[in-house]
Structures are given as C-alpha cells and as structure tokens.
C-alpha cells in the first residue's frame, strides 16, 4: 500500500500523482476515488494532467479517454488499457494498493 495524500487534498475533480513501481494517478471523480497508471498507453503523457469528466479521464496530449473503472480506452489513438488499482481510505488518508493490478 502506498500513501497518496489526505482525503482533503484530493477534492472532487482533482488528481494526485504518486510514484510507485510506475507513476500512478489517483482521481476523485465526484466523490469516488480511482487509481490508474498515470502514463497514457499511447504516448508519453500524464493522465493526471488530463480532463476528468465523470468516470473518464482524457489524455492531455491526444485526447484518448480512459474509463477509470476499467482502464479501457474509448478509442484511438490509444488501444491498450491502463492498469487500475484499488484505492483504500483509512483515517482520512488515501492509499493505493499496488500489489493488485487489474488489466481489463
């Protein structure tokens, strides 16, 4: 488990990037927290810098969107999903469980 930040540091609509075995982006999508690989599977760009809309994060470089629940892209240019990770909140601290990696 990797400590990300406190809950108040991740308000709705915001993202925090942490470095684990790879950079991971943690999003607050209208109250639900999601963690995915931060690097777009298409080209080098940070999804934490992207545009969050509902459960979808749009890559800031080429506008492929990824479903934060599954990691799946909605279409080109990205073809491969990003990995998703469980998010755990304990005592108002946000953690990412990097031992579990789901590839849709």
């Amino acid at each position, binding site marked *: 488990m990797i400590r990300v930040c406190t809950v108040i540091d991740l308000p709705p609509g915001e993202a925090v990037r942490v470095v684990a075995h790879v950079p991971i982006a943690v999003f607050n999508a209208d109250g639900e927290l999601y963690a995915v690989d931060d690097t777009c599977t298409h080209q080098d*760009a940070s999804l934490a*810098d*992207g*545009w969050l809309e509902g459960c979808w994060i749009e890559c800031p*470089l*080429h506008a492929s969107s990824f479903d934060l629940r599954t990691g799946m892209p909605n279409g*080109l240019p990205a*073809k491969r999903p990003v990995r998703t990770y469980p998010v755990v909140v304990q005592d108002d601290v946000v953690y990412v469980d990097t031992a579990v990696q789901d590839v849709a």
Partner: protein
Amino acid sequence: MRTIAVVGASLAGLRSAEALRAQGFDGRLVVVGDEPHEPYDRPPLSKDFLLGTADRESLALSDPDALAALDAEWRLGVRADRLDPDTREVHLSDGSSVVADGVVIATGGAARTVPGTLSLRTLDDAVALRAALTGGAERLVVVGAGFIGAEVASTARKLGLDVTVVEVLPIPLGRVLGPEIGAVCGELHLDHGVVLRCGVGVDQVSSSGVVLTDGTMLPADVVVAGVGAYPATDWLADSGVAVGNGVLCDQGGVTNVPGVVAVGDVARWSGQRHEHWTSAAEQSSVAVRNLLAGHTVAVHDRPGYFWSDQYGVRVQFVGETHLYDEVRYVDGTPEDRKFAAVYLRGDAVVGVVAMNNARHFTRLRRQLGAATPSTPAP
C-alpha cells in the same frame, strides 16, 4: 459501393481504412502507399527515432492483427500517378490500376527541399539523417526554425553536435504562434547552446557549409532543411478534382467530384489546410461517413491542435492566431519555460498555448470560443 481506393497509407489513409470498416463498408478495400513501409507514425521521426531511443517497430500505427483484420489490399511502394474522374480509375506507377466506386485522397505532403540539404518527412529520410548525424559529424546547420527544424536541432544537440539554426523570418514560428510566443520558442534554442540566426536567408549550400544572404559562412558537416511541405496533388492534374494549395473540400472532406473525398495534410477543408496529426486522424471518420452516404452528412469543425517536443519542453497549441489582440498568461511565466496562455480577440479566447503545462492547457482549451477566460483552479 463495392470498391474503395484509399490513396495514401500514412495516418490519414490508415484511419480512413479503419473508419471504412468500422462504419460497415464490407467491399473491396485497396490502400495505395508510395512508401514501401506499413503505416507508421511520423512525429517521433524528429525526436526519439532520430535520437535512437525508439526503433522502427515502435513507430507502427497499427499492429499486424489489426492490419490483417482490415482485410485490405495493400499496394505499398507504388505511387498513384493519375485519377480518371469518369471511371474513378486510379493509375499506379507500376502500370496497374484500380477501378473504384469511391476514392479517399490521403496523399499527404512532400517536404520542400533546398538543394544540397537533407530533409525530414519520411522514415527513409529519418534513417538517412540519423546516419549523417551519428557518422562523425560535428557541426549541423538547420535551415528553418519551424517545428521540424527546432525538433531536429534539439535532437542533434542531445547527440552532441554544434548546431546553428537559420530562419529567414525575424521571429521563429511567428506566423504560427504569434511574435510573443514565437520569441519564447526562439529562446529555447539559446537555452541549449544552439545559435539562432533570424532574418537572414540562405544564399548557397556547399559541401563545406552554408553561405547566408548577408555573406556569413557557416561551416557545416550536415545541413538539414525544415522549410515546410506542399500538398501532394500533382497526380490529380487533369482529374477534374479541384485543387488549390491542397484538394478543395467542403467542411466534410467532400470534393467537387462525386465519390471522391480528401483527408489529412493534402486536404483543404473549407479553405483551411491543417498539417497536423490530430486533424488527419479526426477528419478521416467524417470524410468516410460522407463518402459512404454519397453526400455531406457530417462535418469536422474542431479547432486545429498540435504539439511539439523540443529541448525537453512540450509545446501545445490549439486554435488560431491570426487577428488576435493580446496574449494573456494564465499560469506560469515564459521565463520559467512553464506557462499557459490564451490568445484573445476582444474578450473571446481564440487560441491556447502552453509550455510544459498540459494541466492548464487541457482546462483552457475547453474555453475556446468562450467570451471571458477564467483562471482555472490551481
């Protein structure tokens, strides 16, 4: 339609072929490409590929399974020489021809050349340039400080060469990004020990170097020209397809000839020719929809977007910059080489530019066309 020919096998051609299948076209699909390579991505050619950190395989725009699934006839290494408008027959350089019910023109652009210099447009160009830069060369002169020139200069610095960039205009990229932001891009060269000579032209290129119009002699082992590209429309002479700085199309890629659409760098949609990666990708599905419908049922009107990576700085731009009144910095400063700014015409945001600030760029681009720019939350 039973047969559709896609002429051009780069990004716009591939995306068109993919869109045809995705939109239900199950007839014969022929893709013609003048390069011998399967569709590959051009942006890395001036960056990681030239540097040597990306290989050919990584450039592939599609994987073998996906290409096979398109069930297309690939005519690679063959040029389209002529289009007969009456029969919609595409005559190829190997003497064969394809008779098609529909034609997608995606022939792209060709690099403008300067005698005695290398240029960079194709994979083969990039292989040759990399060989030249890594074969003991010490001094590089780049003619043209546009995006290709700047990216080549940046990569050559990483490879350890002494680099001079020559730009005939007073400010690099001034026509694209405006003088304020163009000047900042010019400073990136200076930050990294590259000499930038603006407002001077090239008089002569020889094996020993470049003579400028002011008489200056710049010794060089390699000279690269990045002086733009022209739309590859020569083959359309006498085709009846209207051409003028690109294939003239409506806002949906539909030309004046029935059953013929155009996409990508070669296409001029409603008077605008976008030589950008994203436009090529986005136009394809729209033009294909109109081709299959037989008339314009969909249009593409998203503002032009492009990015450039140079000297470790990611530049992103969307919108248009002619006739803007003011550049307003919204976050960061140009001195930090990390900022986001909007171009304003009156109170309206007509463009957004950022350096190393994808986060603010992503938010500001949503305000394109909005009356009052607001400062995004930090």
